[in-house]
């Protein structure tokens, strides 16, 4: 929801609250002020909270490709964006920049942020 609806919501809420308390002293019309105030406040709250129930969708996390050198003694590891044609255990043609050995894709994955699991 935009800024205007939020502002309108606040105005409605304040007006409703004023009406609600204005009628307190009037024994005859007080009840109308009371209900009128509640209705205007409800409209204000609706305007303020509209759209807040729907969470903004996060874009999916990027898929990355993890490349490692096949040489057990070499520690070279590279993580780059996924490219079409990548798959796990694919042998790459490019040599390891550290030891010139062969390299293999060891992982194609996403890292999702998840809320911690409550310990119950």
């Amino acid at each position, binding site marked *: 929801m935009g800024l205007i609806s939020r502002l309108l919501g606040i105005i409605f809420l304040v007006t409703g609250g004023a009406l609600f308390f204005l009628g307190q002293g009037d024994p005859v019309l007080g009840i109308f002020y009371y209900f009128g105030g509640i209705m205007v406040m409800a409209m204000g709250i609706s305007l303020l909270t509209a759209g807040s129930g729907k969470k903004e969708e996060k874009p999916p996390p990027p898929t990355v490709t993890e490349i490692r050198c096949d040489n057990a003694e070499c520690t070279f590891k590279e993580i780059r964006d996924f490219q079409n044609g990548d798959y*796990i*255990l694919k042998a790459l043609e490019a040599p390891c920049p550290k030891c010139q050995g062969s390299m293999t894709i060891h992982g194609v*994955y*996403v890292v999702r942020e998840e809320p911690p699991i409550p310990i119950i």
Partner: protein
Amino acid sequence: MVKAEPETVEMIQMQIGAESEFSWIINLAFFAFIIIFSLYGAKIQMWQWLKQIETGLIELKKMAIESRQTSIDTFKKFGRKEDEVAKDLDRWLDYFTIMPVDLDPAGILKRLDHLLDERRDRFQEFVTDIAPEASQSELQSLENTLEVTQVLGLIFRIVRHFFILGKKTGSQIMIMQIQMQMPDLLRLAKAYFDALDAFSAGKPIGDGIGPLVVTKFAREYGGTAETYVHEISREVGYYPIDVEGRTVYALRATGPGGTVGKPGLAVKKLVDNHKGSIARIITVDAALKLEGEELGRVSEGTGAAIGDLGPEKHAMEQAATDNKIGIEAIVIKEDEAAAVGVMDKKILDAIPEVVERIRTAILKRTKPGDKIILAGIGNTIGIGL
């Protein structure tokens, strides 16, 4: 005309609970509210439910349409024009499989297996027609893309059917059921919708952890793509490896195309080929985690870890039972979204633990000279040999 005495008016007002001059209006409104809600409460609630279903239905329709477009965009890269692909795809989205009759259950699994083979053949034939320039492994991944689009279209059409039928008949129970199932249906549809990216781009999915574990294990013991024995059953093969004096047949579907293959029948065939010498069957698969459990948690148990419609699991259990072979399962816990979505890092991180548990199972429960079947169950999309 008889004029009511002021005392009489006051008495009537008091009878409806009036304390002041105007409060009777409030009391009347209160009674009206009670009457309206007792008579029309159910109708108001139905209207509310229908509105909620409609909102969900719009979401489902959006997913179905977008997935159809993604499929068209993916297929048209392989040699056919967009309008031709769209026309053929729409025809195919209605494709159905009639389950075998279960009034006479004898032999039902054989009949089901036959129907599933036939269905698979038709799918392959269709995908080859629609993407003539795709390679074998691309065809398998395209088949998965098609299946996801089909599932999303089906969910939308079924919910729409009950929504319209419920509206037509005014059946409260029908509308209530759909409204109550809607969050679950939306969650399922969202999981498949998000997975479309993985299938169309050939990325590995969470369900592929079984075959991946098997390959990683086989590689530790010298198994390679060259030693992999192809097609012991449809799209399934194995690495023969030696683990501390035992012969292990590390079995999985052939990747990196998206296929599950027929691992149950492959196990049965291996057992038959090595009559009496298979000492143990170990299955590795992804399993649905319970809410609150950690993603990628490893569990083990007894039985065949495979989630097919029946024939594969039956073949595995039958082979184990007939030959008195111990059968155990190691599973990696995932939710639906993680199982059909791009492989999550947490699932990949479970591999060393699963490999260790397999090693322990082999060393503890078999002896040197034994033959063991290690079966990695799952979709091999994006997972090489």
